[in-house]
């Protein structure tokens, strides 16, 4: 297992190098000049040239890229071209905010989707199964943007229970309670699609397992339905469920940008979108690096968790 983790970490470095190179090249291909962006419509050619020189944009592409890479090795992600601040100062808080949102959404997914899938599988083709799967199908098909606005309309505007946007009350910023109140609606909106996917996957895996002989044997030996379902069947269903949860985290990190826009959540996705439109290359590179890193680490954790849950995988990894 240790060897597997070691090789995965090594490949992570290569992935991150590849990702930063591709992002750098892609941003060079898109039209638009950060110097013109900064100076706006009134810019004169002289002013643009002077600013390009100051920002180092007049250097050759390899020099720009390797200079960035050199800084990266020293933990320096560079300075934003448009915000006049170190990239780390901009992106780390944003990344933390996105992790809070995706973490809460993930928690909702696991707490709701797994039991939903298990109960639905147990009563296959029953009313609960049909209703819950229909709802989850609808959930997977609903545009997150629209669903977010619907939540705001009901719970913020009509009922006034929860705030519409942001992370904290702008007038009286509070502590954890304030954050939680602001987190509820975006977390629900962000959880919608992965919740539906995980619930359907759990149901499908559980149906397969519940049809196996050892389950019939367990039932015949007099074990209660609860024990069969939750202690025996679910445990065997967990490895594929954990795998799909790992993949859904990736989806959450990438797809949370819509939720961040609707709910004014100051996360990575929102900043990334703004920086792409401004050709702020250092910020975009850092944002993509963070997401790639999180994706790789979370999937590594999921793989390790699967190994721990399934002795067969552990043995395969060891051999």
């Amino acid at each position, binding site marked *: 297992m240790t060897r597997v983790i070691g090789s995965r970490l090594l490949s992570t470095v290569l992935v991150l190098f590849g990702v930063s190179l591709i992002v750098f090249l892609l941003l060079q291909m898109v039209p638009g*000049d950060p110097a013109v962006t900064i100076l706006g419509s009134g810019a004169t050619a002289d002013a643009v040239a*002077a600013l390009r020189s100051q920002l180092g944009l007049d250097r050759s592409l390899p020099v720009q890229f390797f200079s960035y890479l050199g800084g990266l090795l020293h933990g320096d992600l560079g300075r934003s071209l448009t915000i006049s601040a170190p990239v780390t100062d901009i992106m780390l808080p944003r990344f933390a905010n996105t992790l809070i949102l995706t973490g809460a959404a993930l928690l909702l997914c696991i707490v709701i989707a797994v039991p939903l899938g298990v109960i639905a599988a147990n009563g296959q083709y029953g009313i609960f199964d049909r209703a819950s799967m229909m709802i989850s199908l609808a959930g997977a098909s609903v545009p997150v943007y629209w669903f977010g606005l619907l939540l705001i309309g009901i719970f913020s505007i009509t009922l006034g229970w929860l705030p519409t946007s942001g992370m904290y009350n702008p007038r009286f910023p509070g502590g954890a309670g304030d954050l939680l109140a602001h987190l509820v609606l975006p977390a629900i909106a962000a959880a919608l699609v992965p919740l539906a996917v995980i619930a359907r996957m759990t149901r499908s895996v559980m149906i397969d397992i519940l049809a196996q002989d050892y389950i019939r044997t367990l039932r015949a030996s007099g074990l209660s339905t609860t024990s069969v379902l939750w202690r025996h069947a679910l445990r065997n269903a967990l490895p594929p469920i954990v795998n799909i949860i790992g993949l859904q985290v990736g989806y959450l990190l990438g797809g949370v940008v819509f939720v961040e826009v609707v709910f004014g959540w100051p996360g990575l996705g929102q900043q990334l979108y703004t920086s792409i439109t401004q050709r702020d290359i250092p910020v975009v590179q850092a944002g993509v690096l963070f997401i790639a890193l999180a994706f790789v680490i979370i999937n590594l954790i999921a793989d390790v968790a699967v190994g721990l849950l399934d002795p067969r995988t552990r043995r395969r990894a060891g051999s």
Partner: protein
Amino acid sequence: MTHGTRRSSAARLLAACLAVLLGIAVLAGCARAPVHTGNVLVIAIESEADVLDPQVAGGWVTWRINHQIFEPLVDEDLTIPSKDATVPPLKPGLAASWDISKDGLDYTFHIRRGVKFHDGTPLNAQAVEYNIRRMWDKNSPQYSVKAAGQTNFVWKFVDNVATIDDYTLKVHLKQPFSEFLRMLAQGGNGSTAIMSPTALKTYGADIGDHPVGTGPFKFKERIRGERIDLVRNDDYWGTVPSIDGVVFRPLPDPSARTAALRSGDVDIIAVPNPDSIDNLVKEGYQLSEGIPPHVWYLSFNMRDKYTSIPQVREAINLAIDRQGMADDLLRGSVKPALGVQALSAGGYVERKDAYDRNLAKARQLLASVGLANGFETTLITSTDGSGQIMPTQMAEFIQENLAEIGIKLKIQTQEWISYLGVWARGMQDGVGMAQMSWGMTSPYWLYIVTSSELQAPNGPNVGYYANPALDRAMDNAIKALDPQEADRWWRQANNIVSDDAALVPIVNDKAPYVLAPYVSGFVSASEEWYDLTKVRLKQ
């Protein structure tokens, strides 16, 4: 589990769902709790602000914030609504008064006494000179390429700056510049607002995170993407604000801004969706509009075989249904543009003859140059962007208008930043028109967009327009020592551009804001930014 048990649990689930829905419906009828503002004004803005360094920052969104913290030497009185002052009058800012030499070359500013920056640094002539050199003097250690790039049109004619004594500063110009004072009061694309020299020296490149000015509000905190908090400056030299503070909250999505206003999370929203304004007003919210110096316009490519013909340009100007666009497409959130510049720019000339729709004359003009069957050309515009309103839909509206006189218009769009780069390069072969939205309360803006010496890529004259008569008129206006004479020349310049049909002004934005019912004292002046010192939150 038996079939019957499953059915009963399903029934219980359904009943529970119904109960929740019923509960929501009942609670929906309950009155919402009143908003507790804590005497702090929250404004939802349309995008994240740029850096809080007024000399370096670009865009009106950021200057609306910086303007609360920083002040220039000469300011505009924004407590007067547009209907009472089409051009906001100038007023002393950090300069209590000024003298201009008879030859118009020397400006002597008498710096306001007893003013301190928010960090306690006293305001004096040395502090002002330090700031000016940051924007203008390449040889000074504090020189900032960005600040110089943003403010170059203000300092273009400056020859020298000298501190005479602690409270007197002299700026010597190379030639008279009639719009110098007005340009000192501009924001948006860079501002000449004065920053604490102590803070500039202490924080260097990170000054934007530590903005220290002299304005009515002090910087408290910025959480990027979340909010910018300002608190009242109780030691302010002018009218101390009534509110305790102001929070600028970036909410890029218009629906999210509207929702935040309705829920009481914010008190004012910028750039409301035109479709939501009527409903908000019916619900009791207040609409505040002005006539800021905003022009949504097209430039012609003077090197194109069609748009280089004056009759073609005139025909296009006459074919566009500006009133229809303002009323139908944009629901009254803009005014049809009937002059080259906005009403709030000095030297405004209304030219209904050139800009009111007249299809018969347009067709006649095209026929007179052998283009009765029309031609095909391309318009470039953006899909979004600061001040651009709804560029794609507006371009499509123009496309339909021009089709009526036989002109087949192809539209090429790019997202804002890509477009800005393409636009700044100047129009390429095959492109007949390029769109932009911009403006200033100074008629000097006309020089910036039409002067032959600022043809792209050297400046914003992206259609390569060159008219010696116009250049002469604008030069005379710039050098005029008598304001009335300058005004006459600017009017002539406006007329030349209209006669030559060099630009196509389409609409002027009204910069609508929607305010909660308990907000008072917010004034929409003839500017793109606002003064918050008189705002009150009545509850």
